[in-house]
């Protein structure tokens, strides 16, 4: 395995591989922050937490990551409402994990600000919004809304490991993981720690402008690099209908064709487009589900259609013990196979 810290460009020469005999000793290793770790031979031994997390995740049927290279496109909003929608069926157990350590938005959006996490013999208990909807976030560990989590990468990784290993999720049908923007520690950690436990796939959120798509393409490249299947892309803030004159404006114009063109180019499914609705922001600020608050909004309709497609994708992917192959389906086949077996 190659240390994913290395990119091979400019001053960064190729990593010999963390498990190789040259690990930490090669000329390419000079100046690498992991040099000492590799030279000590620690890089060869896999983190025991990975097996522990695999065991823990045996009671979790489906795992979905919500990603975006770009900040502020609506990942947390989407994660929260995906959780709400799935949990509307009281027989479906839903878990929502917020691994945005520096900017944990989920407690506020779910109306759970101020809640605290409890410890029991079987680990940390998530905060339950409903009997079938549990939530975990670093936000629940902070005593004041002004508390800043000023942590470097390794400490953030440790927290994510604890969230995955030490939270007593119980029997869960869907674990939704909300992530911060970017392609860094948190993203690498969650993929590495869940590597043995199998992630169903990633939902990638964007807005229509190129400045978002530019970052989202990087996120897609990250997914390919770490072999994370992509369920599809959601284009958020896709047009605004004026509440007074009902005419549509493009606040965030799709100057390069928006998510539709990007998805065509990269052969990735576009799960749907969600228009801008001021009620969304309001519901999120007040900690309520806007799917319930404004059921007739075009945004609600779009969300529900996208969520249905995600459920269909997951139902095609059986839990790990029943799977016969570890090779993820190619993206080009996804749409064809989902329509074929849906009938």
């Amino acid at each position, binding site marked *: 395995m190659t240390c994913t810290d290395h990119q091979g460009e400019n001053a960064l020469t190729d990593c010999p591989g963390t498990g190789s005999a040259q690990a930490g000793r090669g000329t390419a290793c000079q100046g690498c922050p992991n040099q000492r770790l590799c030279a000590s031979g620690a890089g060869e031994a896999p983190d025991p937490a990975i097996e522990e997390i695999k065991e823990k995740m045996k009671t979790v049927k489906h795992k979905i990551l919500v990603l975006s*290279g770009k900040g*502020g496109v609506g990942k947390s909003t989407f994660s929260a409402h995906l959780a709400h929608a799935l949990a509307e069926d009281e027989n479906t157990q839903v878990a929502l994990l917020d691994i945005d350590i520096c900017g944990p938005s989920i407690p506020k959006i779910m109306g759970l600000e101020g809640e605290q996490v409890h410890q029991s013999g079987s680990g940390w208990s998530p905060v339950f919004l409903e009997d079938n909807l549990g939530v975990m976030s670093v936000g629940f560990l902070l005593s004041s809304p002004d508390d800043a989590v000023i942590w470097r990468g390794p400490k953030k990784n440790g927290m994510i490991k604890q969230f995955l290993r030490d939270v007593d999720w119980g029997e869960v049908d869907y674990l939704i993981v909300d992530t*911060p923007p*970017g*392609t860094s520690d948190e993203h690498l950690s969650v993929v590495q720690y869940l590597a043995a436990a199998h992630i169903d796939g990633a939902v990638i959120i964007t807005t229509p402008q190129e400045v978002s798509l530019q970052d989202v393409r990087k996120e*897609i490249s990250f997914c390919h690099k770490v072999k994370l299947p992509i369920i599809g892309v959601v284009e958020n803030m896709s047009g605004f209908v*004026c509440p007074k004159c009902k005419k549509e404006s493009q*606040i965030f114009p799709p100057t390069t064709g928006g998510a539709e063109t990007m998805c065509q180019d990269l052969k990735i499914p576009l799960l749907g487009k969600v228009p801008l609705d001021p009620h969304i922001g309001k519901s999120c600020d007040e900690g309520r589900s806007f799917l319930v608050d404004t059921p007739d909004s075009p945004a609600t309709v779009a969300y529900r259609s996208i969520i249905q497609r995600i459920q269909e994708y997951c139902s095609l992917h059986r839990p790990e013990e029943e799977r016969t192959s570890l090779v993820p389906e190619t993206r080009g086949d996804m749409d064809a196979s989902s329509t074929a077996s849906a009938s």
Partner: protein
Amino acid sequence: MEAVAEPGNLAGVRHIILILSGKGGVGKSTISTELALALRHAGKKGDPYMPCRHPGSLQVGILDVDLCGPSIPRMLQAQGRAVHQCDSGWVPVFVDQEQKVSLMSVGFLLEKPDEAVVWRGPKKNALIKQFVSDVAWGQLDYLVVDTPPGTSDEHMAAVEALRPYSPLGAIVVTTPQAVSVGDVRRELTFCRKTGLRVIGIVENMSGFVCPHCTECTNVFSRGGGEELARHAGVPFLGSVPLDPKLTRSLEEGRDFIQEFPHSPAFHALSAIAQKVLETPAQLS
């Protein structure tokens, strides 16, 4: 005068401003870019109240330390430009004909623009230290430092590396909603803990005026930024409305400040630049 710990590539920079936000997607890169352009144009008008090295024009630099999502090259139509080295280090890229605005971004170092920078903290720290110390900025009146969202490696590295040069302070950007304000409160704590002065708060995406009927809709709620400034005891620098001309300018790498002086966002951005120009350097 600012204290300089040692001569280096930042010795010729008069004022350093960091643009921060706990929250992603609130417009840090937008505000960084527009502030830089507004400062450059403000100098051009030859303001007699503004002491600057080159009366009639300001020299402005932008440092983009968002390693995972470097947006600024595109906003200034500088994507794909090559970066050269000189004896003192990397030469920043000039983004305008008159060579008044220079830019350094990790975006310039990527061979393929769609390639992800998948780095953990320690490596990001190392690059940011390099960016701060090894870019040959020359003489600048203002250096605007754009950051990614959060309070983590990049932010700590940037503040530590810039500390010897006594930054003018930080401008913290939010949108009006509570979800943004919630993260930005943490960013203000970060500033306090790291001893970084807060020049003020900018509330971005503050309402949208429908181009068809001029009704103003608060797409992302209202009032959060001003209230936060009051609660935290820091100056409120202004509200910038959602402005499709601004969005389009950024997408196409155009100079919004020069091309759209009658657009809704222009007035707010100019006022913010003016407040920055009036902010005195801290006594060392």
